[in-house]
């Protein structure tokens, strides 16, 4: 076969276009067309219909810069972590953090100045993990939380009341398990990932104390985690569901009577089950325990490697501090989240009744936020140990001892940094 010059040039042009696609940073396409510099803004992929169009609409309304929005499916945290190492990453990005290492390495820009006069209007529980060294490194967009959904009719049929302690939860899950329906779904890994450190807080402990010490070097931790093993050993847990814990399908399809899921799933559950459900925090364990659930927030951060840091800061201030109408729309019109601003959360009608009102109340009474000092390496070591305790019946005391050692080493490492 002979290749003509025209074919060769055509192929070259096509390859050039493909390469251009590969290096797309969001600065082209889907942009606002506003005057001024081009900014790229990244979001992780939300499942709720309409959310992508909404954020593109907000970007288009900004006139001082040409903001291109990228909606990024896949492993978003890994994508942003890698992009922050280069100059071709985003200018503004949504982050479930930032992590302490990202802050200490100077990968994100200090946004403290943007909070002048409005800092007290942000939920303090979720602002704390965005704060390091007295500075704020990201603007919380919405508050999210995990909670325990239960099906009222199934509990009533089995003569079970909503559990008030971890022991009652273990008993309830067992009583609710039949040949076709499991009692409880904590994720396909048995709860190691979804529950994570919540059981420690339910036992009255913590992952890292406010003084920066290990918060679970205590026999109560082993006792509580042993109860998660009990759930697994009783065969009360749903395992191997087609979608994981963050999707309410297993609960709405009747595969399980109770499920640990997010507040975001509330509209879907309500649509499928009407009023036949209630929500709870993870019940308390032991005399010192209290009900517990994690609250957290995706936040807007500015990359330190971006070429337009000042313009990017102006844009995030406009979107996530000044434009409260967009913030309310983003939190409540698509999925279901609590606005990060206390003033907006107070006046939101959708949060005033039924399970949604309960969820908001739990978030203020029982919510905890994952501390900034709980680094990814500590989290992995802990989740691995929890998985071995739950699934393999490993001894909780010895597993936790080894995790405490690793977490101490991590805390020493990050405390040494400037």
């Amino acid at each position: 076969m002979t290749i003509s010059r025209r074919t060769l040039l055509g192929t070259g042009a096509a390859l050039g276009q493909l390469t251009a696609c590969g290096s797309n940073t969001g600065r082209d396409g889907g942009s606002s067309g506003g005057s001024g510099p081009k900014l790229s803004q990244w979001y992780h992929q939300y499942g709720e219909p309409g959310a992508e169009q909404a954020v593109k609409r907000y970007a288009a309304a900004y006139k001082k810069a040409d903001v291109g929005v990228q909606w990024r499916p896949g492993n978003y945290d890994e994508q942003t972590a890698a992009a922050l190492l280069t100059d071709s990453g985003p200018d503004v990005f949504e982050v479930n953090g930032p992590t302490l290492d990202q802050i200490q390495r100077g990968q994100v820009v200090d946004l403290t100045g943007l909070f002048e006069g409005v800092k007290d209007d942000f939920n303090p529980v979720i602002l704390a993990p965005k704060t390091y060294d007295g500075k704020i490194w990201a603007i919380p967009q919405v508050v999210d939380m995990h909670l325990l959904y239960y099906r009222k009719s199934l509990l009533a049929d089995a003569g079970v009341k909503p559990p008030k302690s971890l022991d009652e939860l273990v008993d309830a899950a067992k009583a609710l398990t039949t040949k076709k329906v499991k009692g409880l779904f904590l994720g396909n890994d048995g709860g190691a990932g979804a529950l994570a450190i919540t059981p420690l807080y339910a036992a009255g402990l913590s992952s890292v104390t406010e003084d920066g010490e290990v918060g679970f070097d205590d026999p109560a931790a082993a006792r509580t985690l042993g109860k998660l093993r009990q759930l697994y050993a009783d065969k009360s847990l749903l395992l191997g569901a087609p979608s994981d814990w963050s999707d309410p399908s297993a609960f709405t399809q009747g595969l399980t009577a109770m499920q640990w899921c997010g507040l975001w799933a509330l509209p879907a559950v309500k649509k499928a089950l009407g009023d036949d459900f209630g929500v709870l925090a993870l019940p308390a364990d032991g005399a010192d325990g209290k009900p517990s659930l994690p609250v957290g927030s995706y936040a807007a951060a500015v990359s330190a490697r971006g070429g337009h840091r000042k313009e990017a800061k102006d844009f995030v201030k406009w979107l996530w501090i000044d434009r409260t109408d967009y913030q309310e729309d983003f939190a409540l019109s698509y999925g279901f989240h609590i606005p990060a601003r206390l003033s907006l959360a107070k006046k939101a009608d959708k949060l005033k009744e039924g399970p949604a009102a309960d969820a908001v109340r739990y978030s203020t009474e029982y919510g905890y936020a994952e501390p900034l000092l709980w680094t990814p390496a500590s989290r992995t070591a802990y989740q691995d140990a929890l998985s071995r305790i739950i699934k393999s019946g490993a001894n909780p005391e010895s597993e936790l001892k080894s995790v405490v050692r690793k977490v101490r080493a991590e805390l020493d490492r990050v405390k040494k940094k400037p």
Partner: protein
Amino acid sequence: MRRVLGTQNRTLWFWVFVGPFALGLIVFTYVPLAWSVYLSFFDAHNTVSPTDFIGFDNYTSMLRNDAFTDSLVTFAVFSAFIVPTTFVLSLALALMVNRTRRGQAFLRSVFFLPAACSYVVAALIWKLSIFNGVRFGLANTVLGWFGADQTAWLSTTDPPWYWLVIVTVRLWLQAGFYMILFLAGLQRISPTLYEAAAVDGARPGWQVLRHITLPQLRATSIAVALLLVINAFQAFDEFYNLLSNSSGYPPYARPPLVYLYYTALGREQNLGLGSAGAVLLALIIAVVTVGQARWFGLGRKED
């Protein structure tokens, strides 16, 4: 001009054809490799241009790390399952297809087709349709007809059913490819050898297979065994897609590449430690491959 474009200027044409590939190899393989070795001697959290030199600390902490040594055990278990099963199955398929008189091309295509399927797609089919843990999964539906309880194939560690899922998906994907290699080897065996054996009274079947076919397939068998072991070391796609979820990866069935991915490129972003692990893994693969090749006598002149 004529001299430059003439057929005699071999140096120029050598670089025109080899240059782009050599450049690609240098830029995308050798430079990252050298950079990775460089990073392995630094504390490189969230950076590729580190400043804190720490010597061999990353290497010692990686070797003392239970998660890394466990990942090597996972690899050993995985290859103990996958290498012999793929070897035997692909050889059996090749012998069967080679002997079939009718529909040989059809059977070859049928057995080879899975090799064209993506590991990711196959892993998702295995995870979501065949081996999901609820009552409407294919495996559980079939077992349900016999009154068995539903099994959470990928979430049960006692017994470790996840190995069944991991091994069968790879077996399905790669047996057809190695079958083709064996077929090529089989077709190189001279028919006169079989005729001579028949004249000498060798019984067709096991005796001919043992004394004629297998010794003649020695070179192909060695190549297949080497490729299978190296492929097993590189296992990532099906493990990652079968077992990981949004919260991470379970501590069991975590092969070295998955572990290093989470250490270096996951949220941990410890590029120094990950690089040290990658260097150690590369050394282990090199030692095992060279050792295996010498043991098989690869490259040794036939007596």
